[in-house]
């Protein structure tokens, strides 16, 4: 018999070692999330998946599932928090959805629609983030980076390359690449790398293709992100689980 916990009144079974978010997604129950990826160990930085357990808030992606927990997620208070966090991420970077190749496939945009973020809410910070177009096949548009660290993790854990890392502190934190020149062309990244596939927004892009799937027919155009919980259910790791370049602790 597996143990269970309660999520907004529904019973969710879990296995030893699963976090609340992992168990919920595996059971087809959606909790909004952004920096979580089904193939990697969660680290809990975006805080979109914040839930309330016994009156205390916690990131559900890192909170261990426990028998009998009473978890609140789909409440007005938490959804307001989530939409505010999405607004903060939009204000922190430079996001222009209509011209972005990731539009329709972008998790940040999809969450914005799903959480009914209709206005900016905050003054935009308009950071100065030059793109890196040095690599012949790959473009890095740092303007859209939400610092989720998935590319860092994928490159280190799966590709064994450590192409990416986060640099700086606080609001100056930003993505850097593994080269003395600071340019992607001087790294050993390849199109076949796992790091090419995991960006939830439009930072890491393949050059030479654009809008090959028309807007309107993309992943989140077909059904909202909240209706795709099972696709985010945890799956077997391709990863070694050991990240040399990651910011968070094991």
């Amino acid at each position: 018999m597996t143990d269970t916990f309660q999520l907004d009144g529904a019973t969710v079974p879990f296995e030893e070692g699963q976090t609340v978010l992992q168990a919920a997604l595996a059971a087809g129950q959606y909790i909004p999330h952004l920096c979580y990826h089904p193939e990697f160990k969660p680290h809990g930085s975006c805080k979109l998946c914040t839930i309330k357990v016994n009156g205390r808030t916690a990131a559900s992606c890192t909170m261990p599932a426990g028998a009998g927990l009473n978890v609140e997620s789909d409440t007005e208070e938490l959804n307001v928090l989530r939409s505010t966090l999405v607004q903060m991420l939009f204000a922190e970077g430079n996001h222009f959805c209509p011209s972005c190749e990731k539009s329709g496939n972008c998790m940040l945009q999809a969450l914005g629609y799903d959480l009914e973020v209709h206005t900016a809410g905050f003054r935009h910070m308009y950071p100065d983030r030059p793109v890196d177009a040095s690599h012949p096949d790959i473009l890095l548009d740092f303007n859209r980076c939400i610092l989720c660290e998935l590319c860092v993790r994928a490159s280190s854990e799966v590709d064994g390359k450590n192409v990416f890392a986060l640099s700086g502190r606080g609001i100056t934190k930003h993505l850097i690449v593994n080269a003395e020149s600071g340019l992607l062309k001087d790294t050993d990244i390849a199109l076949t790398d796992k790091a090419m596939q995991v960006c939830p927004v439009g930072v890491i892009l393949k050059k030479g293709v654009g809008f090959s799937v028309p807007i309107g027919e993309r992943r989140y155009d077909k059904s909202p992100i909240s209706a795709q919980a099972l696709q985010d259910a945890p799956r077997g790791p391709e990863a070694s689980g050991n990240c040399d370049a990651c910011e968070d602790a094991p």
Partner: protein
Amino acid sequence: MPTEVGLSTACLDPILGRHGHDASNLLQILRELQDCIGYLPADAITYLADKLAIPRVRIESVASFYSFLNLQPRGEYRVLFSDNITDRMLGSAELMQQMCQQLWAEPGKVSEDGLVSINTTSCTGMCDQGPALLVNGRAITRLTHQRVQEIGQLIRNHTQLDEWPADFFRVEDNIRRSDLMLDNRLAPGEVLRAALALGADKIVEAIKQSALRGRGGAGFPTGLKWESCRNAKGSEHYVVCNADEGEPGTFKDRVLLTRQADLVFDGMTLCALAVGAKQGFLYLRGEYQYLLEPLETVLQRRRDANLLGTNILGQPSFDFDIKIHLGAGAYICGEESALIESLEGKRGVPRNRPPFPVTHGYMQQPTAVDNVETFCQSVLALHMGAEKYRAIGTEKSAGSKLISVSGDCPLPGIYEYPFGVSVREMLQNCGAVNTRAVQVSGPSGVCVAESEFDRKLGFEDLPTAGAFMVFDDSRDMFEVARNFVHFFAHESCGFCTPCRVGTSMLKQTMDKVAAGHGTQYDLREIENLDRVLQTGSHCGLGHTACNPVLHTLKHFRPAYESRLKSLDFEPAFDLDGALARARQMTGRDDAGAHLKPEGA
């Protein structure tokens, strides 16, 4: 600016040798490399990555996290003015401006001749003898216009720091009231010898009975922590002393490490005996680098006296030693799990908890992390016995507490009180008059207004890590809060969205209000940001970052409202101000070069 690879490697090879080519010493290696070259050149990082066999991107990532490490060339003299509110109240901003003018430098930039870079830094822990600054990492206190003038002259003459007047670097202890801790006359190792006869279990039991609680602010029961650490399974156990005293307005650990270093190390050794540790670390904040040498001397004396090393005091297989690790300018490293990350040579980002350091700490092994003062108190508690110790202080707060008093009072300095002393009594003792408010326990603590001066220090009422900043009725509490908000934005590690973005937005909004563009809408936005920070943040920094604003809004709302425009909305930027650059370029400042005449 290209560097000579030869220079880098000439510096690096001995440093690497000293640190055993071990990447977990990365922060210490980077600090020493910078001491040698003045900054961390790109080619040196590549060389280091190769020698340590780690990705260079990781080194850059770590180096960029710490304020005192520079990836770009800085001036030959690197001057950092302490920017705590107490320094500002003593005129630090004007002094910095004076130095910039004298040396033709712009804040935050290297002077054209490469001679000097001048900037601000978070509180350097010299609040009772400010304004203070750091020059190439060394603390200078009691700044005046004359002293700044002299410093400027020394810099202009390229005078080596060793030849600067010793008086500049003099740091006073300013002990104003002492009690059991500062009055103790215990010989080094005296209590340790008695503890050896007791054995580990009885030590833990005695500390539990004494009701000793952590002095870093949170007040976790120390005996329970040691017991959990002792019982946790691991290949090694570690003891860590948190001397990363970064909370603005706090400087009591500096005085303890100056006056009572043996008591601190006795406490750490006692803890090692209790939890079964062979290795201890003292994490010393970078601002206190000048204490490194005297502390190393004390450690060596203790090794020579067999108070450290192998078979301590003749006890077979009781082996323990202490290593000092210097921080590099990151307030967040005062958080115990961030401190451990930093000890491991990483970015100081707080870990996800559970698991807690007592089971998974340094190198994922059981680790007891305690404050400097907690270690001192543990020795006294054991020496006095639980009953006598518990008789001091209050029911839930046993023993004494060091308070760092600064701000508007004639007698700033260190006061040791039994817990339970009232704010009013402390104000009387330090001679403060016409006091408007006291910030207890630093920016992350509580702002206490006059109506609450009968509140008492202790875990029952006003818990404190030790800061006590006094503001008299000439002070603008809005500006106090704004200084603290800037501090949190600067010190946010940036790991989680709410704190990374929220603290910066809070700063923007407070600046907007300060510039006279604030509206009721902005006060609502402040409250909105406060909620996000409190409910969503990853660690205590984010949770408490809004405290200064919440508390001052509660007590001193008029200080905010008097600055507001009565409009519902007002743009953040000043339309006329936006033309400033055009005016500067054209050299015009007449009425026609302004959008509208003043006051129209």
